[in-house]
């Protein structure tokens, strides 16, 4: 960095113009390149607070179909914002190519710079390079897909009525978390292919379903095998199962089930990488801003505002603070990436013992490796260091409902490190958080009833709204639905049915 050129301050704000933003973007881009951040092209959109509320309520879809629940979300956001109970986010970023980032117009220039570094280079590079996003989402076609979904659903509303479509979407939303494939990779296709395929699919699907539910007697009786179940293996993707097998759905209804399923799948990696994604973006906005400062591009006052906001973002209240609401993913993620860099650059004896393979290695290589190949669960399991556990003063509490007391199972000491690391890692394991419910069987030859099984994790019962969810499932399936809760021995402990009358 030549001193003469380097000492040239960038515009310092607080008010910004598009020329200022461009200047900062150029500088940030230069630094990001220096740190090998590989990003999609950025599309940075400046929006107002009202538009930000719109963006909030459409839960991260820049083009969303219409549904009352988004309206509810909007009203909630508007209420809390207007009462001052909540500030709006400085930015929202969409996993798409080009990567769309919304900046709020109210932000000061230092904040806009921070946000550009955070969203347009931090999140953006995460979206492009993390293995989950690479495997499960197709950034280049997602906007087209949203558009397709919106138009398709609008067309259905025209043809079949708003209420009909709304009911169907309600039911699909209730099962949205059960609309993801965890082990198969969907192929990426373009919008025109999607439309073409949708037409073919419509005919093909219907013919398949009809085959399954054929009632014309078979003249060549095959040896009956009553022990054979359908499906032969339990199915965890309930929406997929319904899309392919529900006997009474019309083709357009199957397509809508599919849309909800696809969107759920699109958001699935984000749910699994909250700590990493935010930590990565926070680490980079911090590092890039420091770099700008070291280059003499920004002033002290500029930096103070940046640091003030950064400190707020990564604050972690203690368990007994009135502000405590779980572990702040920004705080944990930022601390972990910073800690990995520390382990690489200045490893202690302890680090060399715990992380022999990364202690003393090139920090940038290691950081990229960590970002690219892990999700929250495995990232914490792999990289949470004893030092961080001490810094956060982590302790774990065992809550067994058969015991009268809670027990402190481990604290941040030599005997507790492994336990805490393992527990914290499991806390981010979606399969522990979301109840494990699978399609177990369908009575093909009888009343066509559908049986689901819930396998409790650590004896945790299902929330009592399960019968409400079952009503939605019933609406999609069209025949009786039963949910069996298994006990630890694998036997049915209790089951919930939806009475026909109550399900409409």
């Amino acid at each position, binding site marked *: 960095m030549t001193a003469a050129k380097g000492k040239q301050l960038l515009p310092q704000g607080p008010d910004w113009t598009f020329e200022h933003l461009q200047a900062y973007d150029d500088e940030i881009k230069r630094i990001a390149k220096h740190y090998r951040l590989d990003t999609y*092209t950025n599309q940075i959109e400046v929006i107002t607070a009202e538009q930000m509320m719109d963006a909030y309520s459409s839960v991260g879809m820049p083009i969303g179909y219409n549904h009352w629940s988004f309206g509810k979300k909007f009203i909630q956001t508007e209420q809390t914002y207007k009462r001052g109970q909540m500030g709006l986010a400085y930015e929202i970023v969409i996993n798409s190519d080009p990567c769309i980032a919304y900046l709020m117009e109210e932000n000061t220039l230092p904040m806009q710079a921070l946000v550009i570094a955070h969203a347009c280079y931090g999140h953006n590079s995460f979206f492009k390079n993390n293995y989950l996003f690479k495997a499960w989402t197709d950034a280049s076609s997602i906007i087209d897909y949203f558009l397709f979904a919106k138009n398709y659903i609008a067309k259905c509303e025209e043809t079949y009525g708003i209420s009909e479509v709304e009911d169907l979407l309600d039911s699909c*939303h209730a099962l949205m978390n059960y609309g993801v494939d965890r082990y198969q990779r969907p192929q990426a296709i373009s919008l025109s292919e999607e439309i073409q395929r949708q037409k073919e699919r419509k005919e093909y699907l219907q013919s398949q379903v009809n085959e399954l539910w054929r009632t014309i007697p078979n003249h060549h009786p095959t040896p009956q095998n009553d022990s054979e179940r359908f499906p032969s293996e339990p199915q965890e993707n309930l929406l997929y199962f319904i899309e392919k097998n529900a006997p009474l759905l019309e083709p357009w209804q199957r397509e809508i089930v599919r849309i909800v399923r696809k969107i759920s799948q699109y958001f699935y990696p984000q749910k699994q990488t909250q700590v990493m994604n935010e930590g990565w973006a926070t680490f980079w906005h911090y590092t890039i801003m420091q770099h700008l400062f070291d280059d003499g591009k920004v002033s002290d006052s500029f930096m103070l505002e940046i640091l003030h906001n950064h400190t707020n973002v990564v604050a972690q209240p203690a368990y007994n603070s009135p502000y405590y609401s779980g572990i702040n993913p920004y705080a944990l993620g930022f601390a972990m990436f910073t800690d990995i860099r520390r382990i690489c650059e200045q490893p202690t004896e302890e680090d060399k013992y715990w992380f022999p393979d990364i202690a003393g290695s090139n920090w940038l290589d290691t950081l990229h490796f960590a970002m690219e190949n892990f999700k929250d669960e495995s990232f914490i399991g792999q990289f949470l260091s004893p030092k961080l556990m001490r810094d956060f003063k982590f302790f774990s509490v065992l809550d067994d409902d058969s015991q009268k007391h809670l027990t402190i199972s*481990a604290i941040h000491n030599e005997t507790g490190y492994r336990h805490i690391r393992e*527990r914290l890692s499991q806390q981010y394991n979606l399969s522990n958080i979301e109840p494990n419910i699978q399609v177990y069987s369908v009575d093909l030859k009888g009343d066509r009833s559908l049986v689901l099984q819930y396998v409790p994790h650590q004896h945790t019962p299902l929330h009592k709204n399960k019968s409400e969810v079952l009503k939605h499932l019933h609406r999609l399936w069209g025949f009786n639905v039963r949910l069996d809760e298994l006990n630890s021995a694998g036997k049915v402990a209790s089951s919930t049915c939806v009475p026909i009358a109550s399900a409409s």
Partner: protein
Amino acid sequence: MSHFIDRRLNGKNKSAVNRQRFMRRHTKQIKQAVSGAVSNRSIQDLQSSESISIPTKDLTEPVFQQGQGGVHDRVHPGNDNFIAGDKISRPQQGEGQGSGDGQASDSGEGEDNFIFQISNDEYLDLIFEDLALPNLEQKQQAKLTQTKTYRAGYTSDGVASNINLVRSLQNSLLRRTALAASKKRRLKEVEQALADENLAQDRRQALQLELENLKSRIKKVPFIDTFDLKFNNFVQKPVPNSQAVMFCIMDVSGSMDQATKEIAKRFFLLLYLFLTRSYKEIDVVFIRHHTQATEVDEQTFFYSQETGGTIVSSAIKLMDQIIQDRYPSNQWNIYAAQASDGDNWAEDSPICSKILDENVLSLIRYFTYIEITHRPHQTLWREYEQLAQKHEHFALQNIRNVADIYPVFRELFKKEVA
């Protein structure tokens, strides 16, 4: 390369459709909340925007979740005094430690309400949904007496103040050109001929004469003629009456207590708001009566105490008088609402009925009578009942308590299905 896009000018109401969907889905609850609000909240701010509160349980979007119980081993930050193996008593529900399920209000028991604002317009829309002013259409045609002046081009006669200068002078120029053009052309020829040196003397004289002649004739074309004048034209077009007057008649005799008056006031207010939706300007005339009727201002009408007997006809007469004096029925849409506890001097009731029947009802759009009482009806009600059978635009209803107001109002103004 990054692209910057300024989206601030794009519409901000991207969520409007979804908000409407939400309202549509919860119409039933919202309507309930609105009718509750009509009878519950203070009257003065009935016209401001309204907070609607819907039970959260009607709004939940259920998903499969883990419930309470089971074995959990959770990590928390900020250990200050624990060592492994410590036993602590279970914290009360809702304390920070059980952070697993932070959505207590979603569990159904917490009857938390989802509260949001609807705009004044939405509020009034909901209050008056499906309601209509009765008999409006047939009458509107017959009584189109108000007119409005519109410009309608130009005309060739009118008063001096309406002269259109531009048009008039255009005409003048046109006429002068038309009348003088041939002469001017000839004038030019003559002048050219005169300029010739070799012209014969007699010929020259003749041309000279013609020249003079032409000049004087050109001069005689008048600069402006009555024929040129154009006037701005105005026509009168009939317009529907946009002004209404509402008569509030209330019994303030000793038998009417403050609570009854409050009910009456709410009813009047609803009617007033309803009328504001159809008419631009509304006059309100307050007539209160015991044995005598007086026209008073709003404050006196609702809050001053009076005692004495009751003669309803006095008020009806006064109303008739006021209509004659100030509100000719061909210019005003007249509505009247009468509230009373039903007490009347028995011999007066037929008189009321008679005045209404013969004089008043033919002049007004709609007359509503509400009787606020728990007791059996008396003579006035019975007289009015007969009247109601004779006249379509006379209606009567009984209100027992505050909660009845809104339903009764809806009953009175419900849209008639043709």
